[in-house]
C-alpha cells in the first residue's frame, strides 16, 4: 500500500479545483443568507490581521498609545462583526437543514468553530488589560475552578491567557475553519428541501 498514492488519488478526486474554486453555483443559491458565511470569514481576516499587528507591538502599546488604541478598536469591532455574521450564518444554516445529505460533519466543524471562537474571544477580553479584564478574571476563576478546569487553566495567569489567545486558540480555530471550508466546497451547498407536491402531480 502506497500512502502517498492513496492520499494523492483521494485528494485529487475529492478536492478538485472546480470544487475548491467554483465558477458556477446551483441556481438555488440565491439569498442573502448565503452571504453570511463569506462575511464571517472576511471578519475573521480583519480580526487576525489587527490581532497580529497588536501582538507584534505588545499589550502596553494597545493599552496606552493612540495608534494602539485604534487597532484595539479595529480588533474589537471586527470581533463584533465576526460573531454577528457567524451567528446569522449558524441560524441560517439551521433553517436550511444544511447538515443533510452527507454534510453532518460540515455542521459539526462549524459548531466547533463557534465554540472555539467563544473561548478565544473570552481570553481576548481577559487580555485587554483594563478593569473589564480584571473583573472577568476574578469572576471566571470560580467557574473554571468549579468545573474542574483548574488543573489546566489559571484565569489569573496573564501569560497563559495571552499565549492561549494569540497562538494556541487561533491555530485551532484557523484549522477548524479551513477544514469547514474544504468540507463545504467538497460537498457543495446543500440543495433545497423538496418542494411540496400538489395533488395531481404538480407542486
Amino acid at each position, binding site marked *: 500500500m502506497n500512502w502517498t498514492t492513496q492520499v494523492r488519488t483521494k485528494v485529487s478526486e475529492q478536492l478538485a479545483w472546480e470544487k475548491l474554486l467554483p465558477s458556477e453555483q446551483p441556481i438555488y443559491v440565491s439569498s442573502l443568507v448565503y452571504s453570511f458565511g463569506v462575511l464571517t470569514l472576511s471578519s475573521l481576516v480583519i480580526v487576525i490581521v489587527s490581532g497580529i499587528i497588536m501582538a507584534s507591538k505588545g499589550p502596553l502599546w494597545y493599552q496606552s498609545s493612540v495608534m494602539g488604541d485604534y487597532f484595539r478598536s479595529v480588533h474589537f469591532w471586527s470581533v463584533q462583526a465576526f460573531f454577528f455574521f457567524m451567528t446569522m450564518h449558524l441560524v441560517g444554516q439551521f433553517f436550511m437543514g444544511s447538515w443533510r445529505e452527507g454534510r453532518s460533519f460540515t455542521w459539526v466543524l462549524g459548531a466547533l468553530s463557534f465554540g472555539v471562537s467563544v473561548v478565544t474571544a473570552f481570553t481576548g477580553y481577559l487580555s485587554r488589560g483594563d478593569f473589564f479584564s480584571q473583573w472577568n478574571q476574578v469572576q471566571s476563576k470560580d467557574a473554571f475552578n468549579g468545573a*474542574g478546569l483548574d488543573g489546566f487553566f489559571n484565569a489569573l495567569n496573564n501569560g497563559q491567557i495571552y499565549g492561549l489567545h494569540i497562538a494556541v486558540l487561533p491555530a485551532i480555530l484557523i484549522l477548524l475553519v479551513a477544514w469547514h471550508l474544504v468540507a463545504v466546497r467538497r460537498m457543495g451547498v446543500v440543495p433545497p428541501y423538496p418542494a411540496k407536491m400538489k395533488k395531481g402531480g404538480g407542486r
Partner: protein
Amino acid sequence: MKRFTRDSLRFPTKEFDLLKEGTISLVIVAVLVLVVAGIWGAPYRPAVTNEAVSKTMPVVIEQTALGDLNGSGSIASYGPPYNNGWHGNAGSIQSLYGFSPQTWWGIPYPVNTAQDDVIGPLTMLAQASGNQALSQAIHTYATASYTQQQSWDQNLQNALNHATVANGNVMVAPGQYGPVATMMQYELQLARSGLLSGALNHETNNGVYRYNVQNDLLFLQGQALHKIANQLDMSGEQWGINHDESAFPGPWWLTPYTFFYQIPPWNTSSAGDQAAAYTVGLLFFLLILVPFIPGLNKLPRALPVHRIIWRDWYNRLEKNRLCETCALRASCEKEFKDTRTPVASKNVTPNCYQQKEPAASVRSPLHA
C-alpha cells in the same frame, strides 16, 4: 442502503465568481470596521490597582488584609486550587452530588493569604526600610498563640466597621489590637506607595517577568472590585460579563451562559458555577449533534423559514411546472419527495435538473 444524496452540481447552475465575491465581502467588512473603529473607538476602563483603592477606599484595604490574616477572607478559606482552606475548612469547593473535579488537581496555585498578602509583603517592607517597629510587630504576631492572634484580629475587625478616615489614614477607637493595628497601618502605607502590588506579583512570578498577576488580583477580588463592579452593573446577577461599558456592545454571545446566573437553581446553588458550566457544555454538545438528534434534525423542514430562503427556487419550480413536464416525471416526483433511494441511474439526470436558467436571471454577488 446508502443514503441517497443529490449532487448540488447536477442542479441547473449559474455563473459564480468565488474570488470576486470574497474580495467584495472583505472590502465591505474592512471599510465598515475601520470607519466604526475610527468613530466610536472601543471600551477601556483603566485597571484598578491596590494603590488606587488605598486612596479611595483605605478601610477596604485594611479589611481585606485583615480578612487575609485571620482567615475570614474568601480566598483564605477558598480550597483548591489555591489552598486546603483555612485550617482545613474550605469554603469554595463546588460539588454536584459528590462530583467535584475542582479537587482533583491538588493545589496547583498555592496561596496562603496570611503569609502571602500580609506577613510576606510587610516583612519585605520592614527589611527594605529598616523599620524595627514593624519587624517587632510582625514577630510579636507570628509568635503569639492562634487564640491570641484571633482575638486581636477580631477586635480590629469589629473596630474597622466603625472606622473613619483622616488624611488618608484609617482611624479606629482604642482597643486590644496587639500588633495588628500597626501591621494594618503599614499594609495600607505599602498599598498607597504602589509597592504592595509589586510584592504580590513578586510572589507569583519566579523571575523578573510579570506574567502571573494571581496574588495581586486575589487581593483585589473581594470588596474592592465588587464595589466598583456593582456601580457598573457588572456583577454576576446583573448579567456580568454579558455587557461591556454601557455604550458599547459586550460579549453578547455569552448570553446563554449568563442567563443561567439569573434563575434558580443555578443562582441559588453553592455549586452554581459548576452547574452553569456543565449546562452550557451540554447545550453546546447538543448544538454540535443537531444533525444526529431525531426530531431536531427534521425541525427546519417543518418550519417555513427555508421556503423564504429558497423562495426563488420554489417559485421557479412553480412557474415552470418542471415536475409536470419532466420526462422522468415519476422519478422527479420521488426526487422532490426526498426519497432515500436513488431515483435514476447514476448517469441519468432528471430533466428537472437539466433545465438551464436563462443568463438574464443570474443573480448578483455575495452568494457564496
